[in-house]
């Protein structure tokens, strides 16, 4: 692992209804682009971006999934190995917000119980078309114990913050895990984040 030029590797999977802007969020963060007229994602897309946080290189493996129903069985297979899930909805689309409980059920069913879930309301540049108030989303995320953020992939609002904050939380989570696991021997079926860590960081 010392050959690889990063200190941490995390898998982040974006999920949510079709057309809420998952691909645009990923493109904005990884390439700094906002491609207008983005077609629907087919299956899953895969991007990598390495960021530096407090002098440590963090490699983020970002899986951008298709929101359409027919790809559900493909996207579900990625939940389990994810360190974090970004659950996205469109603030101008009530329907995408109303589907959130269904998405949470999927997470419950397929993801590891250690996964960090972030709720993201995208498209705040279209403020005049807003259908989901910030307060409603905040209350919902609080009830579900999720971190919550509103973004605009188009205006690049909060996009960087979303991914960097997430990376920070993943790092501290990973640190805690190794501390715990150094004391007691690992149990079977543990989350796999530990295996991603280079031990040299903590010894």
């Amino acid at each position, binding site marked *: 692992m010392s050959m690889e030029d990063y200190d941490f590797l995390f898998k982040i999977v974006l999920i949510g209804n079709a057309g809420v802007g998952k691909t645009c969020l990923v493109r904005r963060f990884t390439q700094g682009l906002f491609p207008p007229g983005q077609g629907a994602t087919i299956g899953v897309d895969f991007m990598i971006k390495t960021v530096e946080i407090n002098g440590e290189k963090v490699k983020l493996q970002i899986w951008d999934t298709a929101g359409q129903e027919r790809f559900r069985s493909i996207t579900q*297979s990625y939940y389990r190995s994810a360190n974090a899930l970004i659950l996205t909805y469109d603030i101008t689309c009530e329907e995408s917000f109303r589907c959130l409980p269904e998405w949470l059920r999927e997470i419950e069913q397929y993801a590891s119980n250690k996964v960090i879930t972030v709720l993201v309301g995208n498209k705040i540049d279209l403020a005049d078309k807003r259908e989901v108030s910030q307060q409603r989303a905040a209350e919902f995320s609080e009830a579900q114990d999720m971190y919550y953020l509103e973004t605009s992939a188009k205006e690049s609002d909060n996009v960087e913050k979303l991914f960097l904050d997430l990376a920070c939380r993943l790092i501290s989570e990973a640190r805690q895990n190794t501390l715990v696991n150094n004391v007691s021997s690992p149990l079977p079926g543990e989350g796999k984040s530990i295996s991603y860590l280079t031990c040299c960081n903590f010894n």
Partner: protein
Amino acid sequence: MAAATAPGPKAPPGESGGPAASALSMERIQSLTDLADLEAAYSRLCEEEKVVQEELDALLEQQSTIENKMVALHRMGPSLQLIEGDAQQLAGMVTFTCNLAENVSSKVRQLDLAKNRLYQAIQRADDILDLKFCMDGVQTALRNEDYEQAAAHIHRYLSLDKSVIELSRQGKEGGIIDANLKLLQEAEQRLKTIVTEKFDTAMKQGDLPQVERFFKIFPLLGLHEEGLSKFSEYLCKQVANKAEENLQLVMGTDMSDRRAAVIFADTLTLLFEGIARIVETHQPIVETYYGPGRLYTLIKHLQVECDRQVEKVVDKFIKERDYHRQFQQVQNSMMRSSSAEKIEPRELDPILTEVTLMNARSELYLRFIKRRIIADFEVGDAMASEEVKQEHQKYLDKLLNNCLLSCTMQELIGYYITMEEYFMRETVNKAVAMDSYEKGQLTSSMVDDVFYIVKKCIGRALSSSSIDCLCAMINHSTTELESDFREVLYNKLKQGFPATTFQDFQRGVTSAVNIMHSSLQQGKFDTKGIESTDEAKQSFLVTLNNVEVCSENIMTLKKTLESDCSKLLSQGFGGEQAQAKIESCLSDMAAVSNKFRDLLQEGLNELNSTAIKPQVKPWINLFLSVSHNIEEEEFSDYEANDPWVQQFIVNLEQQMTEFKAGLSPVIYDTLTGLMTSLIAIELEKVLLKSTFSRLGGLQFDKELRSLIAYLTTVTTWTIRDKFARLSQMATILNLERVTEILDYWGPNSGPLTWRLTPAEVRQVLALRIDFRSEDIKRLRL
């Protein structure tokens, strides 16, 4: 200043001035009063005078040369005037020539202009003639039903410069031209109607030569889109007819037919092959008569029909194979764990294979049309701007991604993945439930079975040619192996290696004869207990082997998949990210191999602490009951009847035989490694509790050597290192005198690296009853 300080006569003249002016000023000479000074000044002035005289002479000598030069210059005067005149004349000539040249070139320009206008005039005259010729030609051709000729005339007319025609109409003969034009336009309309009608008739009659004949005429009339769309209509009808026929055949297929299980995949294949053949056959005509970049339009039309036919076939497939109901059942079975209405995974096998085959055919077909369209666009876009190229790429992506074929297949594959996952999980569960172990085998049946199943499922997903489908199944396999199957093995190991029974404990104490005796007795009284204990032991060992093989198999599976995938990718399947996606999913799978390794290590530690340690420890403790504080007589007695080590070795051997037979060589090796470490530690403990005479030390040395010699034969590890401390202790116990230690210590240690601290050396020395503690204390270590 210089003169004031050093006014001596030896000062060279001119040192403080140029040769022309004297170094001594008048005032200074007048102020001189001393005779010696005066003399000095005089002699200096004299010398200066001499120098000046010489210079004057030299200048005078040059006078004649200068005069000669002056004469020569005077002589050149008249010639210069001549040259000036010539130069002025030349300048005049140049100016004249220049004007002349400019005049000429402006005339040439005028000529050029005139020539161009002439050409234009000729062109226009030609065009007007052409127009008339076309008009006449069209009429004749139409009369003769020579539509190609008529179309060629119209094409000629259409390619004429419209502004020229407009200009011509304004001319004197405007009336005639107007009439001609009108006739031509009428002819054009007539021809269009005729061609369309004739094409439709030919199409209805299925007259391919006539269809192709009129198809070629459309572009001449500027009707590219109409031509392509009409021709496509004709081709689509052919596709539809053929597809209808094929579907009828499917319905009549006997279930015993060899291809019955994949009949829908075969039907799709026929459909795709038919369309591909049409594209192959008609691409040259389209290219020749419609130009490059038009194939996209043709295929776009064909794809609509293709989608329509695919929908029919897939609908039939779903209905005939009960695809949706099967999926529903699978989903229900996954939700509820009740086994009552669980669908039998084996029943899914054929349908899963057929779906992957259907998708593979679709991918192959889509790749074919993608390549054709790209190649056709490339020819047309060679000179095009980047935007046009991107635009075309967008058209293509849209066609490929949004066609019903793609969506339908994605839907089918979506269901497939869920069903394949179910198939895998249920079959693995079955393999676990039916796990059996044959004597003489290291592993039990489930390991081979489970990996056969996983390989089969991933292999089937791979055969669909869909990268996302493959990755999803790799992910599901990783989950299955990591959580479910590993859990099974973990639970087996958790039951532990049966704790040593009292009889087993005794077995260690008593001699070999007693072992046979007691086991005979046990056989009589408690066969069942022994058998179940033995079974539990064997189960534990087999599980250890299973875990190891799993870890290996995962790595093998990963390697196999890597090479399979690179084959698929090299054929051009999958997008730009395909490689990275597969690599990521496979590396997750490889990580599971390490988890199995960790489990193996845990199991071995368990075995070492529950099975080996409780046995070995009492055997080693027996050492304490053998006195090493001995004299000559006992020493030779020990020689004849070994008091401890031989029995210890026999016991060890007996114990390890069981493991050697039951464990894979690699695991056995690791286990013996753990055991030797254990022996070294335990033996050191008892050693430090004993006392030794000189001969007792020798006895221990002999014992230790025998033990090391034995252990060396059973392990492939180098065990000397593990016994280094004990060997050094034996050396100390064998010393003649306390001070002899200094021959081996510190600077005298030579190649020997001491593993004992000075305190430990003293502690061991103190075990010798014949060594005085004062001597030991006095040692400087």
